[in-house]
């Protein structure tokens, strides 16, 4: 740890450029996974057999492929099929798709936790499927879904480091590059770890807040 503060000051700007990309990848894939996860979950509970089956198969396929393989596929294989993505696009797409499976299962669990009587009450005043979802089920499911959603946010922040494998110069990759050119492994990776931790802590507090709110009711 010799000269840690000195190194910290020197490497901080480079690592910060990595932090920016880490945040971009995390937020991008969080949004994508939320939209896709909601879509899969709605298909799953739609009561239409074909949609529900399609969604279940999709979720299983996505869950069965490691994130890193998904990233390689998008970045290295897609160009052969005529679709060229930038590393950043491939990273957001890959992580977003990979996490959509977990989001979907989380959303579905939240939706199915709503008392059946609520749905019957909605139907009994003439609400159709979509109106029942929008006015009755989803607003109540949000409280249930938020704590695990917060945990997914933390996991995504950390898993965004996998984007380094397809050359996205986010925090982990910047750290690796500095370390391999300066041989100051200890100082550099300690800094990288601390920077991830700094980003995680607000999210951890957010999850705690969600849990308290869900518990109150």
């Amino acid at each position, binding site marked *: 740890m010799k000269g840690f503060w000195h190194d910290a000051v020197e490497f901080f700007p480079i690592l910060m450029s990595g932090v920016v990309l880490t945040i971009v990848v995390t937020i991008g894939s969080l949004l994508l996974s939320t939209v896709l996860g909601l879509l899969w979950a709605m298909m799953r509970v739609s009561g239409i057999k074909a949609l529900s089956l399609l969604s279940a198969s999709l979720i299983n396929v996505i869950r069965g492929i490691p994130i890193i393989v998904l990233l390689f596929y998008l970045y290295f294989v897609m160009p052969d099929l005529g679709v060229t993505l930038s590393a950043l696009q491939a990273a957001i797409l890959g992580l977003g798709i990979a996490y959509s499976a977990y989001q979907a299962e989380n959303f579905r669990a939240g939706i199915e936790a709503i008392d059946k*009587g*609520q749905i019957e*009450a909605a139907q*009994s*005043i*003439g609400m159709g499927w979509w109106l029942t979802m929008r006015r009755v089920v989803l607003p109540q499911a949000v409280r249930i879904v938020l704590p695990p959603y917060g945990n997914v946010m933390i996991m995504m922040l950390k898993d965004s480091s996998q984007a380094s494998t397809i050359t996205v110069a986010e925090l982990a990759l910047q750290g690796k590059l500095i370390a391999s050119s300066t041989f100051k492994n200890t100082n550099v990776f300690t800094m990288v770890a601390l920077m991830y931790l700094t980003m995680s802590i607000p999210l951890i507090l957010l999850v705690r807040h969600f849990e308290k709110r869900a518990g109150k009711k």
Partner: protein
Amino acid sequence: MIELNDVHKSFGANEVLKGVTASVQKGEVVCVIGPSGSGKSTILRCINGLESYDRGEISIEGLKVDRDAPSIVKVRTQVSMVFQRFNLFPHRTALENVIEGPLYVKKESRAQALERGRALLAQVGLAEKADAHPPQLSGGQQQRVAIARALAMQPKAILFDEPTSALDPELVGDVLGVMRKLADDGMTMVVVTHEMGFARDVADRVLFIDGGIIVEQGPAKALLNQPQHPRTQDFLRRVLHPL
């Protein structure tokens, strides 16, 4: 107004309705009594399409009840339901519960829905609870909000599925009082209930159901005071004199 013709319904191998034929006239109050598991709740749930039926036909003013057809929405806006466990929306206030249907299903203006919503809450004696959320209300108050919610749809009939069974005994009277007033005002009502006093005083007709069929039916006082069928006699003896 409500017609049931030879309605059959099975849950798996268990046939709960074995050919029910009945009709309810406009303005009539019909109480459905019978032992638990006799199929009386299932009949109500079939009438507004919460449950499908296998054979026979149910119609409301000539409109066939088919839960898989788009017309089911029309059926449900004409026939409201009050549930045993209230099923109020816990994330909305009493008033919001009442105006939910008029606002989002019937697309009434907010001002109009609010005005009638407040009037309905006043009618069930809960004007001052308009802004309370359901968990802050007693069971009896929740059920009265549920009745207001049903009325807000301006239905032609209301189905009550054991509306007082989940209530503490001292709260039953308030709910029955509201229902009696509705009956006096000419509302068409089908009430599944164990409240024999209510059935005798308020109902025009009583149906006794056992084993998925209507065993006996007739004018309320006659059926409850002089039941003809031995199963009706046996059931009423147990309910009225449990010791």
